[in-house]
Structure formats: structure tokens, C-alpha cells
């Protein structure tokens, strides 16, 4: 167990190191002039060349890439992620508030899509070949082809503009002070974004569960249960669920990357103040420090999701535990293929 933890910690550190290099290299080769981005267009035009040179010196934009990376990474390690230009506050503060918003959104969508997708997949497998199965399958295939942001727009049109059930955007009512915002307000603003995100997330898990459940139905122990007189549902409940639940959970954990990507789009559509919309603002406004920090956080989130998925693999399959890590590794590779 200790070696498993150590191995994963090492993997995490290596991955974050590589990610930070890639991220830093990408934001640094941008054709945007950092000095110009930082002081703003109008101030830049009226600035004297000496002042520009002085600022460039001060921000170290003339230093070689490696040196700048070293400075930046050293600061990040010490917990100083720089100052966000767009929000005019330390990056850590900007992220702290939005991280919770995003987490609430993603957690809601994660749970909702997991339960819904699992149920749909199970129903489709039990009713295999029938009209219900075909409807569920068609629904999943269409969903897989649907852009998240467009579905968000359609939900906005239907539920906010036409029916007026939900507010058009933001996580709290506009103009209300933080003290007046009740839990219900937050919930009301969360419903549409979370629904959009989970409706999209259903497709993958439902199709996967359906395949697995069909395999289970064709297994010998399942046939035996049915031959003993159990109905399909009964047999599914007593013998199928156990086989299906953990793989589904694992897949759901391995899907954190997609969930985060979807949340970026959904937050933008619903003007929901989370990490995703902050990343977009940062990217469009040349806010390098914020963009890099959010990219790192998203990578950490994805890694944690995958890690949980790997551990669950060991839990599901006792063979993996018994035979040690060589097998676990193989299974993990299979999981990666399935989730991609």
C-alpha cells in the first residue's frame, strides 16, 4: 500500500511539473506583448520608450524563458501565484472564491449525471432491443453530438426566457449583498447550469453501463438466476448491480477532464462565476498568471479523478489486489481506453 501511495505521489509531482512547464511555455510564447497587456492599451500608447524598457526590466520580460519559469514556479510553490490583472487581486483570492462555485456546479452535475446515466443504461439493457432501449440509445448518440454550450443556450431560451422559471445568469441575484443571499437563491441559480452539464454527461455512462449490463445478462450466473425463477429485474438487482456499480463509478471518476471542459462552456453561457469563466476572461484579457493557475488546478483535479478511478479498480477486482500492481497497471490501461 505504501509503495502504491508513493508511486502515485511521484506520478502526481512529475505530471504537475510537466504540466506547469507546458503551461508556462504556452502562455509565454504568446504574441501578445506582456508589457502592453499589463498596462493597458491607452497607457501603453502614451508611454515613453524608456518607461516601457523599465517596466520590461521590472517584470523580467527580457529574461530567458527558463529563468522566468524558475521564478514563477518558485513563487507558486511558496503559494504566491501572482496577481491577476483582470480582477486586480491576488490570483489565490480570485481562485478561492470561484473554486467553490465551480466545485458545487461540477459536483451536482457529477452526481446527477452518474445516477441518471446508470439508471438509463440499466433500463436500456433490461429492455434490450425494445423501443425503450432504442430511444435511450438514440438519445445518448444525439447527446454525444450536441455541443454543451448550445444545449445551455436552448435551456436558457426554454426555461429562463419563455417560461421564466430560472434566472438568466450569475450565481446570486444581481445587486443583492452577500448577506442576503440565501441557500435557495444559490440553488435556483445552480439548477440550469448543473442540469445542462449533467444532461451532456449522461451519454457516456449510460452507453457504458448498457454494454456492461448486457454482458452480465449473458453470463452464466445471470442465466442461472433467471432459470431459478427470478425475473430479469430481480436478477439484475441481486446479481447484476454489484458487477455494474463500481465500473460505472470508476468511469465517472475518470471523466473529470470532460466535466471540467464542459463546466468552462456552461459557466460562460450562464455567466456563472466559476473557474471556467475566469479562465476564459483570463485568456481573452491576457491575464497570464490567472490562466496558468487555473490550468494547473484543472490538471490537479483530473489527476485526482484518475487516481480515485485507479484505486477503485483494485477494489472492484480482487484479482488485481492479489496479483499485485502489474495487473493493476494493465487494467488501468484498459480503463483509459474505455474512457477516451
Amino acid at each position, binding site marked *: 500500500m505504501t509503495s502504491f501511495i508513493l508511486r502515485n505521489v511521484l506520478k502526481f509531482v512529475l*505530471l504537475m511539473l*510537466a*504540466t506547469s512547464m*507546458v*503551461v508556462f*511555455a*504556452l*502562455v*509565454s*510564447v*504568446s*504574441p501578445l506583448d506582456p508589457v502592453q497587456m499589463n498596462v493597458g492599451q491607452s497607457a501603453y500608447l502614451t508611454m515613453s520608450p524608456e518607461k516601457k524598457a523599465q517596466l520590461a526590466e521590472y517584470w523580467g520580460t527580457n529574461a530567458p524563458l527558463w529563468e522566468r519559469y524558475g521564478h514563477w514556479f518558485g513563487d507558486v510553490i511558496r503559494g504566491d501565484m501572482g496577481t491577476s490583472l483582470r480582477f486586480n487581486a491576488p490570483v489565490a483570492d480570485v481562485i478561492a472564491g470561484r473554486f467553490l462555485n465551480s466545485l458545487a456546479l461540477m459536483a451536482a452535475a457529477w452526481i446527477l449525471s452518474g445516477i441518471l446515466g446508470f439508471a438509463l443504461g440499466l433500463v436500456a439493457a433490461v429492455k434490450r*432491443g425494445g423501443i425503450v432501449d432504442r430511444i435511450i440509445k438514440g438519445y445518448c*448518440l*444525439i447527446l*454525444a*453530438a*450536441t*455541443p*454543451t*454550450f*448550445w444545449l445551455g*443556450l*436552448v435551456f*436558457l*431560451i426554454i426555461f429562463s*426566457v*419563455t417560461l421564466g422559471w430560472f434566472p*438568466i445568469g450569475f450565481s446570486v441575484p444581481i445587486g443583492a449583498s452577500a448577506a442576503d443571499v440565501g441557500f435557495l437563491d444559490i440553488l435556483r441559480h445552480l439548477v440550469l447550469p448543473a442540469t445542462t452539464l449533467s444532461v451532456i454527461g449522461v451519454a457516456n455512462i449510460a452507453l457504458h453501463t448498457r454494454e456492461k449490463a448486457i454482458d452480465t445478462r449473458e453470463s452464466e450466473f445471470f442465466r442461472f438466476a433467471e432459470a431459478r425463477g427470478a425475473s430479469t429485474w430481480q436478477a439484475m438487482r441481486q446479481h447484476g448491480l454489484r458487477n455494474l456499480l463500481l465500473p460505472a463509478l470508476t468511469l465517472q471518476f475518470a471523466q473529470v*477532464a*470532460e466535466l*471540467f*471542459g464542459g463546466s*468552462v*462552456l456552461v459557466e*460562460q*453561457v450562464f455567466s456563472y462565476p466559476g473557474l471556467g469563466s475566469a*479562465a*476564459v476572461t483570463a*485568456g*481573452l484579457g491576457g491575464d497570464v498568471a490567472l*490562466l496558468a493557475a*487555473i*490550468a494547473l488546478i*484543472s*490538471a490537479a483535479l*483530473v*489527476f485526482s479523478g*484518475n487516481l480515485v478511478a485507479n484505486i477503485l479498480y483494485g477494489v472492484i477486482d480482487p484479482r488485481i489486489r492479489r496479483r499485485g500492481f502489474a495487473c493493476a497497471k494493465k487494467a488501468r490501461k484498459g480503463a*483509459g*481506453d474505455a474512457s*477516451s
Partner: protein
Amino acid sequence: MHPRRSDLPMTPNSPHPSEGASGVSGVSGVAHTSEAPGGIVGTLQKIPVLHRPRREHASNKTHTLLIFGAAALLLIAIVASGRAAGELALLTDFTQKNLGPGLEHWFGTDWMGRDMFLRTLAGLSLSVLVGLVAAGASALIALLLGTAAALGGRKLDTAITWLIDLMLGIPHIVLLVLISFALGKGFWGITIGVAVTHWPTLARVIRAEILQVKQAPYIEVARKLGRSRLSLALRHMLPFVFPQFLVGLVLLFPHAILHEAALTFLGFGLSPEAPAIGIILSESMSYLSAGYWWLAVFPGVALVATVLLFDLAGSSLRKLIDPHTSQE
């Protein structure tokens, strides 16, 4: 050379009329046995009346081929008409602004009186073009890296596998935002971005395929005959993975197109003058509360339809190419 089993004439009392390719499930098994000459009468009599096929169907292979052809033709038609509509799509007519969908303007018009149907077509053709270039480049990267990982020895394999893990470790959208931030916005920024982010999954598939074929006897024989490694890869392994590659390429399109639209929607992709679906949809956001729903709904539906067409083309191509399912 021994004659393969399926080359032998099939007799009615041969033990397994359709073993091998099909017979996975009972339902489809019925359809397959009808293809075995001689077996058909006996089988049909066993089926209850209600389960008998209502009429003779074209063979499943022809059917799949037709679906593939139709999907491909429709896509070509979309691109061609979109190209043709390019100029017309930008035509403004302020006497015709903000009209709902009707006979004259199928998808309605926007606040500048542009016909939304033409704009959508032009946007789709642009999206397909970006998808084509990006998916093509991405598939080539996947082929190169997948082959290199499988044939280049242990160290290279570890490095490439790790690179794949790294690429999959950052969410696609975030990576795309970073890349388009680095390269500047516009056609090339987004095309390169999509191209360098979409190869990992296909590279994994190709690596696995080549690792598998590496053990095949005919490769062993060719190696013993003194073929060079390059010639082995080009003459014996490439033809083996090519079908997978082709299918992977077609199935990359939907992802590429969706990510292009998403990125353009966020403001990182194509420039606002370009008639792109992402632009159309992000512009429509300002008019949602005014009740101009058609600005968002129809272009989106068209995008979904295009993506589904690519999906259909890709999955029918896979069915045809894969020997296990080519008769389904």
C-alpha cells in the same frame, strides 16, 4: 495454402451455418442464417409468422455501404453549398431584420437582415474545413507517434505513453484555450490547437494494434527473410493498421468540429467576421432575452446534424472495414 472454412460450399446440414463472423446475439443470428444458401427455407419455417421478415432486404453490407455513401454525399453537399453561399451569407438587408423563420427565410434573419440559413451553411462549411485539416493532421501525428511507440524500443515507448497521459491530463478546452492564446486567434491558431490536442486516443489505438501485429507469424517470417525495419513497418504493418487509422480519422471529425465551435464560441477561435457557427451562437446570446430564439436554435440543430452525419459515416465505415461486423 489451405482453403479456409468459409470457402467450402455450405450445405444445409453443416453444423454451424454462420459461425465466425456473426451469431453474437439470437436476434441478429436469424438475419445472418438467411444468407446461407440452402439453410434459408428450413430457418424460415421455424420462425413464427410474426417474426418473419416482412420483405427481402438488401444485404446488410450493401445497406451499410449505402448509409456511408449517403452521409458522405450530404456532407459534401453541405460544404459545397456553404462555399457557394459565402458571399450571399454576408449580405445585409435592414428592411428584413429580425424576422422569424418562415418560407422566405427558413432559419429567420438576424439584426442586420442576414439570412440565417445561408449564414449557417457557410458556417458549417467553414467548420467542416477546419475539422478536415485538424483531424487529418491529428490522425497523422497519432499514426507517427503510435508507430514510434510500438516499434521504437522501450524508452521511446515510455516517453510517448507518458506524453499521451500528460495530454489527457489537462482538460481539452483548457489546453485549447492555452494553445490559441499562444498562437494567436484565427483559423491557424484553432486548427493547430485542435490538431495537436486530439491525437492521444488514436495514437493509443494504433500503438496497441502494432504491438499486436508485431507478434504475427508473417512479420516474423519477413524479418527472418532479412527485411529492414522500415520496410517491415511500411509494407507489412501500415496496411494492417490503415483501416483503424481511416476509421479513427473519420471519427475524429466530430470532436474536432465540436471543439472548434466551442472555442470559437468562447471567443478564442475564428474571428468575428468569419461566418462560423460558434460566432453565430455567441452573437445570438445577446438577443436571447429579446426572444429571438431562432438565432440560436437552428444553427445549433444544423451543427448537431452535421456532427451526427460524420459519426454515421465513421461508424458505418468501421462496420464495413472490421471483418467481425462487415456483414451486420
